[in-house]
């Protein structure tokens, strides 16, 4: 991790004094940087520790020593853990579910967000209020009735029950709507006068304008899908359709004493998430702002 090399870089700082805010002392700045580095390291240390444990053999893992603070070139735990559960299946299921959910959620949000912002129709305000009210219902309230409904629709233990309920997103509709509200009306009016229909206006004029919103939304839905646990855990019972986190949870309850194997499986299921995060940090932060700020685009 990059964090490990960071404290050393504080030494170069006095040379950059001119760019700093006036009125703060050099010692103050150095102390602040050291504390910042320590806080940052504290947050990633647990993940580092599990990664290190995943490369130790059993006796090293059970008896702490300074040598067990650095990773060893030993991947036997990965090899063992990988063969103890159908991980390929779990990964494939997760990716399939996540991609379908993202595509569906993008499509429904784009259409509804466009209609709720640019188009005019009777009942627009009331329907939009209805959409907002959906946001208030916590997932644990829906678990019981959705389980019964899924049972009746024969959707239990399928991909569908893991995709469809998340195929529409209040956050997504809100985000897309907010973006469209910021696009100058004249653009749509011009297309309208040229005789374009609503669908053409949406895809030719609107879509290019809201691409950043779609990226943020797609990422949000993707992560939600990858990290989902309670819902798929209750709604599915067979490994054939279960996603990665449910697989990991079941794996941990049946192999709870194989700590090194467990650490390996935690590592190989979490590293993909971390890679996506490190590559797309900016979008994640925008996503956090818009998810929280509710909504100001």
């Amino acid at each position: 991790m990059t964090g490990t090399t960071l404290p050393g870089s504080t030494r170069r700082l006095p040379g950059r004094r001119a760019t700093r805010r006036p009125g703060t002392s050099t010692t103050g700045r150095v102390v602040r940087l050291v504390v910042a580095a320590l806080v940052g390291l504290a947050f990633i240390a647990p993940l580092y520790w599990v990664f290190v444990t995943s490369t130790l053999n059993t006796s090293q893992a059970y008896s702490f020593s300074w040598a067990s603070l650095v990773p060893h070139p030993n991947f036997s735990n990965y090899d063992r853990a990988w063969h103890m559960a159908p991980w390929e299946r779990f990964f494939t299921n997760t990716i399939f579910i996540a991609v379908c959910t993202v595509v569906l959620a993008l499509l429904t949000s784009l259409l509804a967000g466009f209609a709720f912002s640019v188009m005019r129709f009777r009942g627009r305000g009331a329907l939009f209020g209805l959409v907002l009210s959906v946001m208030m219902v916590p997932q644990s309230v829906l678990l019981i009735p959705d389980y019964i409904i899924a049972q009746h629709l024969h959707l239990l233990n399928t991909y569908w029950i893991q995709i469809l309920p998340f195929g529409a997103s209040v956050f997504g509709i809100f985000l897309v709507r907010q973006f469209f509200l910021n696009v100058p009306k004249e653009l749509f009016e011009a297309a309208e006068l040229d005789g374009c229909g609503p669908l053409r206006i949406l895809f030719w004029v609107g879509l290019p304008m809201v691409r950043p919103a779609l990226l943020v939304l797609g990422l949000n839905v993707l992560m939600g899908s990858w990290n989902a646990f309670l819902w798929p855990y209750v709604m599915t019972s067979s490994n054939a359709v279960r996603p990665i986190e449910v697989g990991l949870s079941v794996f941990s309850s049946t192999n709870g004493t194989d700590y090194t194997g467990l650490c390996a499986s935690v590592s190989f299921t979490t590293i993909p998430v971390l890679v996506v995060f490190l590559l797309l940090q900016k979008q994640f932060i925008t996503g956090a702002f818009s998810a929280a700020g509710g909504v100001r685009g």
Partner: protein
Amino acid sequence: MSVAARRPRRAMNSPIAYFFVLPALVIFFVFTIAPTLYTAFISLFNWNPLNISQSKFIGLSNYKNAFAGQANPSFWDTAKTSAYFVVAMVVLGPLLALLIALLLQRGGRLMSAARTATFLPNVTPLVATSLVWMWIFNGQFGLANQVLKVFGIGGPNWLESNTWAMPVVIFVSLWHELGFIAIIILGGLTTMSSELSEAAKVDGCNVFQEFIHITLPQLRPVMFFVVVISTISSLQAFTQFYTMTQGNFGTSTLSYEIYYQAFVVYHTGYAAALAIVLLVITAVLSILQFVLNRTRD
């Protein structure tokens, strides 16, 4: 005038708008709106999940049982446990996140790396990271107790202790959420007026006075908002409880109890009543948040 009258039918007034909002509305109706009403319906029954036609209408008895504390575990114990968790998260979360945000608000590569590091836990899947912390807080081999041993302290078996299980879950949840809250607060800090703090400096305020009289009042809407979303999200927390304690050792919160009553002991009607109680609490908080959002803009 005659030009306006001959204008072609406006695309943006087309009733196609209804088809645009339909897919999202159908999904919300089938998986959220109808199920919410269904939950209220189920909560009035002694529900038989194996044979629904054998369910008996019992009016408000499930609610009466809950509020009279007659179920096992008692609703009031569950409420107390939830309150313990929610209050701890809502007091410590925004407070620590504020400190982190103030520490990391400066520019520079180290600062930005530290911000990334604190935000990183928030994107990791909770099943995986709960396992990470279970390994660290393992009574026999965990890092926490190995470190305590160096200081001659024999650490407890953290997650199997009535005293320590909840504090550990709170600690882990804070680790997961702090970065997210800090990002929101950082957003608030960047939009603050720098003129005011310049003026304060001219008037001879020290850093602490500037924070109390200038920064904090401007941050108040953001902090209030962060408190509301922390309350809602900690009321709904489930995965860390399921993974780390299975609701044992004084950690059975309302959300965990809904799952347990419905899907482990099959007291579906009672679980539905608990779900409605949770829904009411969440709805009140969501409306509060919405109103706050309105006044903030």
